[in-house]
């Protein structure tokens, strides 16, 4: 009985191994390209106001269509491009329905230029401007995969679907930690639209551009799509603890986390003897914060003794504040055999404060780089190899040489005299 079972298990395992062996390589290579392919979702406002004829004498819609055609021609092969509309379908007055009006015009995937262009050609300015819901849907469109993700939002009017603040939506999307950037383009924007769109952009580390000419629009969207195609390191999400003992152990790499106002985050890194720990941290101001702020990164031992710290402070407009530290750990010669690596605790605290009326959750995004490299030898002298340079050095050497010569000469004269008298 037992033998039969074993045999069965063995056959199953063999079969599984074979199938895996056959299935895996093909699947893996296909997955690799699609999984890391950069994804871009163009979100275009097709609300009624796009009829206004104020971009180089043609309507905003026509300008957008022309720009899209150019962009679709220039999109790099590897980019997975999708198009989403907002306010394209519901012409009525019902706010509730109008604010749900967002549709996928062209799914995110390998680009068929002709099909995409045909789809764009059908657009006619129609309804409301539900930016928030459109962003949420666009984030869903881009879900999955390891590559960089980018939403390019083109709009000509501020969101007409309060109370859902698109800026809050953008922040929530960023907080999901999927590495998504939202770039916004405002067509002939007014002050309110500028504020809203730049708020959306800043919440995700994107850019805001105000567009007044057709060629500007095409150039900018092209630039953004190209930017998405550039390979970037994707950070690994981690969650720091509130004390060192519970902190996650980090290897060399790039990490992201969120840190609320007034919170502290701890991480741990193992540093073997003769290695150097390099850590840097950036806290991004993804919402309106008060103008004075700071950041502190401390490396401590497990017992809480501070080894070294990096600190930064600033005021005024900023995207991030960042600092870093180095901790070279000397090679110990008196210890024999393998020495367990030292565990270094990293504590991150920022002193941003939220401007009044700004949501404090989720926390501000942190970006943490950790590198553990071979350490340097300790320097024994200020100057290189203890060498000197300059006229004073030459003078001193000449004087010393001269004096030595004199003394040597007198000595030998005295010796000759002593020898002669004897």
């Amino acid at each position, binding site marked *: 009985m037992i033998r039969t079972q074993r045999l069965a298990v063995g056959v199953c395992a063999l079969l599984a191994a074979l199938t895996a062996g056959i299935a895996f390589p093909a699947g893996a290579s296909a997955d690799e390209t699609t999984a890391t392919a950069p994804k871009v979702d163009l979100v275009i406002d097709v609300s009624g106001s796009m009829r206004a004829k104020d971009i180089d004498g043609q309507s905003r819609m026509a300008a957008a269509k022309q720009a899209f055609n150019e962009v679709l021609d220039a999109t790099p092969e590897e980019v997975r491009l999708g198009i989403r509309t907002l306010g394209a379908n519901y012409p009525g007055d019902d706010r509730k329905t109008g604010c749900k009006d967002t549709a996928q015009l062209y799914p995110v995937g390998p680009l068929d230029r002709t099909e995409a262009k045909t789809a764009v050609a059908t657009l006619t300015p129609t309804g409301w401007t539900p930016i928030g819901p459109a962003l949420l849907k666009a984030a869903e469109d881009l879900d999955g995969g390891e590559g960089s993700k980018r939403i390019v939002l083109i709009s000509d009017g501020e969101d007409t679907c309060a109370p859902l603040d698109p800026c809050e939506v953008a922040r929530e999307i960023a907080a999901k930690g999927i590495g998504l950037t939202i770039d916004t383009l405002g067509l002939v924007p007014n002050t309110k639209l500028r*504020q809203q769109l*730049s708020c959306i952009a800043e919440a995700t580390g*994107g*850019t*805001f*551009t*105000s567009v007044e000419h057709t060629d500007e629009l095409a*150039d900018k969207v092209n*630039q953004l799509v190209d*930017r998405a195609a*550039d*390979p*970037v390191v*994707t950070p690994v999400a981690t969650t720091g603890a509130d004390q060192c003992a519970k902190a996650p152990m980090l290897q060399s790499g*790039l990490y992201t986390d969120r840190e609320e106002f007034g919170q502290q985050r701890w991480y741990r890194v193992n540093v073997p003897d003769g290695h*150097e720990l*390099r*850590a*840097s941290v*950036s806290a991004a101001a993804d919402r309106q914060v008060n103008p004075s702020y700071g950041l502190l990164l401390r490396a401590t031992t497990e017992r809480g003794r501070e080894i*070294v710290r*990096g600190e*930064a402070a600033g005021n005024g*407009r900023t*995207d991030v504040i*960042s*600092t870093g*530290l*180095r*901790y070279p750990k000397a090679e110990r010669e008196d210890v024999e055999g393998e020495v367990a690596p030292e565990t270094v605790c990293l504590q991150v605290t920022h002193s941003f404060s939220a401007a009044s009326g700004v949501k404090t959750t989720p926390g501000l995004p942190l970006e943490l*780089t950790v*590198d553990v*490299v*071979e350490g*340097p*030898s*300790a*320097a*024994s002298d200020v*100057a*290189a*190899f*203890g*060498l*000197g*340079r*300059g006229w004073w050095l*030459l003078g001193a*050497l*000449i*004087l*010393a*040489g*001269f004096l*030595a*010569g*004199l003394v*040597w*000469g007198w000595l030998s*004269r005295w010796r000759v005299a002593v020898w002669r008298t004897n």
Partner: protein
Amino acid sequence: MRITRVLSATALMFGLAVAPAVADSSPSPSASQDGDAPTQAGTSFRTATEIEQGQTATAGASTGDYLYWSFPADAGQRPTVKATVKLPDTHAAESWQIDVYDGLRRRQACQYGAQTRTAAAGAASVELTCVLRTVRAWSEQWANDPLPGTYYIRLTVVDVPTSDLGLPVDASVRVDSKDIGGSAAVDGSLAEPLVPGVAVKSPEDEESSSASAVLSSIEPEDGWASGWWSDRWVWTAIGGALAALAGVGGYALTRGSGRPRQVPPGA
């Protein structure tokens, strides 16, 4: 400066390996092939566009963007970062600023130069400069002295009315560096330059040569300096030779010229 040249020439005669010294003594690499200079800028530390020293990188951007570039700086160099921003035809007064960060993302001080400048309303362009401190080969871990490695430039507008946000601007940056030479030579060196992600990069490179993204793959044109050469070798060698000569002179002084008169011939 002349003395350095003379000494370098002497070093040549001595047959010392002066190749690095000669390479170092040119003020900046003459590699300004502006044809392949980057025409984009990154928008974060992670996406910073890598530029070479002596290259003029340009980027079209919008007012309010944070533009990032990164460049390599090696020991003994004193980099100067210059940025020019061409502003739109009509705009209100706005302040622009460049910040320079090192490979650990620590802000580096500018010794001098207009790091922040306010462009008056309607001004055509604004020019910014930041002269960094000399990059040292080694420093104590508690200091934030500039060390060899990647440096990041961040260019942004720090004070702007909302009405000007998003307007198109053209930015260009250029980094040149002055070679400070032996006076900045210090003992010790870093095992690896301060290039972010250097610990992640090296093992991957051995396994596969695939073009995977790295945080920074920056390196100076002729590689990182090994750190052993400085003109202090020449100074010290010449000092030693002169001391020997002076010693012979001092000895000769005590002995007078030729044979002493008291010594009988044949002694």
